[in-house]
């Protein structure tokens, strides 16, 4: 009868290190999971899955579509990619405030107006795309000037 193939053990140093790490993680994890263990586990694992299987494929696909859409002007992709990425980054980080989903609590707790975030994000986005457009036009003009004149 053939022997079942056993998994090799691997580096003993690595095993020791990971053993220590798991012991500490378990010590803290037991305390983390006391309140609502299912909810916490869902958030812990869900955050990783949501990032790796939803957020990342989503922005990668958007970027791929952008590159495809640029056709032979691939060198111009950056003029859209950079402002779009920066704007979406701001939206991702400040989504609760920009979307207004915490507007009521925010206004009553801090005494600050809750409705300026969307406006400011839109203005920042406009500035990012506008700045990129200005840069694009300037570079295009410089490139046109530097090109040798065509004969009439």
């Amino acid at each position: 009868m053939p022997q079942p193939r056993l998994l090799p053990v691997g580096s003993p140093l690595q095993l020791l290190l990971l053993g220590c790490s798991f012991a500490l993680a378990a010590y803290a994890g037991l305390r983390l999971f006391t309140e609502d263990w299912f909810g916490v586990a869902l958030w812990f694992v869900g955050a990783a899955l949501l990032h790796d299987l939803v957020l990342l494929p989503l922005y990668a696909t958007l970027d791929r579509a952008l590159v495809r859409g640029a056709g032979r002007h691939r060198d111009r992709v950056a003029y859209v990619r950079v402002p779009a990425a920066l704007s979406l980054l701001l939206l991702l980080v400040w989504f609760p405030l920009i979307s207004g989903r915490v507007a009521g609590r925010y206004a009553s707790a801090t005494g600050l107006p809750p409705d300026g975030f969307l406006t400011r994000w839109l203005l920042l986005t406009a500035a990012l795309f506008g700045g990129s457009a200005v840069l694009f036009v300037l570079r295009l003009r410089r490139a046109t000037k530097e090109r040798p004149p065509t004969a009439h």
Partner: protein
Amino acid sequence: MVRGPALGVARAYRRGMARPDSPARSRPLPRTPFSPAFWRSPLRGPWLTSVLGLVLLGGITVLFLTGLLSYAAYNPDLSTVNDKTPDKGLLGFYLFSWPTDPHWLYRLTQGVHVTLGITLIPVLLAKLWSVVPKLFTLPLARSLAHALERVSLLLLVGGALFEFVTGVLNVQLDYVFPGSFYPLHFYGAWVFFAAFVAHAALKTPAAVRNVRQLRAEHGELVSPSPAAPTVSRRGALGLVGGGSLLLLVTTAGQSFDPLRRTALLAPHGGAEPATGPGGFQINKTAAYAGIHADETSEEAWRLVVVGRAGTVRLSRPELLQLPLHSSSLPIACVEGWSTSDQGWRGVRLRDLAALVGYDDPPDVLVESLQRHGAFRRAALRANQVADPRSLLALYVNGEELTPDHGHPARVVVPAAPGVLNTKWVARMTFGEL
């Protein structure tokens, strides 16, 4: 910057299978994420991952240490009312009496914690992007050590995202996470840090080598069939750095009154809530805390001071008869924002302690009129009570406290987190807690 999985893949896969002998195909088409050829970005490679990894090694170490300091700043071992994590066990091994000097200490450590955390978000996202093919590497385990390392990576990635997400949500008052912020963020940090230390120990030597190395790249992160580049590695790093810079300049201003308007999207950026001496930033308004004007009026409100000499009840005019002192202190919140120094005027905490029989100031339990809220009761340690700048403030910037800043009386203590500067104080119990 990004070339990753695409929805068109399945279509391309079917097309490829229908014409297996197609002469146009010099190499196999990308199939599933489990095939290395699926990942086509020419940017991925040990150099980019190592640079991002080393930035995070430094950044996350600072985040962890400032986080531990913030935990210590609450003096959780002083009294159960300060302790949101009573079962911390050995994780509180390093706790110490939080000092009152320099008076901007918590403003600095917590400002760095939150602002740096927000600034590192693009670096974290880029790092996760750069290593995502490894998530799909087959075989699932080459050895026992490798299998355990992959489990550890779940704690690392899940832990990092858990910490960043709970932190970012908490500063925006979006309490959707499953439980109270303090235990989640504190114990979550330890779970994450356990995996982080192992990962750093295993990877840092190679990362340092990779960054120094100038030769052509090889290794499992390098795509076997890279797409034509649309940006250089340095360009991609520039975008990540630009994202960090943008977050930094639109956030950092919420820690400085003169720069507050530059914090365009931060929760305590923009204009001050009001004008005038009491117009500076508010953590929780009187209305939010459920404070009614009839219980803070001069007729109704009495400060109850309890100590070994008995109980003293003082109206606001009686308090004003005591020696008044001034001190210049900021409000610094766990949410990372702070105000510049404000001019407070009121009765020294140690004078109140002396009033009830303590010439050598002891600890004190401060209770607010607030009916709910995690810190409606807070304990201060003897060193905080003894500091001559610690006041039961009655005035700020030359005028009476406003209701939102704690009228009729509030505590201000140098270097203490904002929530320990109890507002609408009703009762102070001096003595061993």
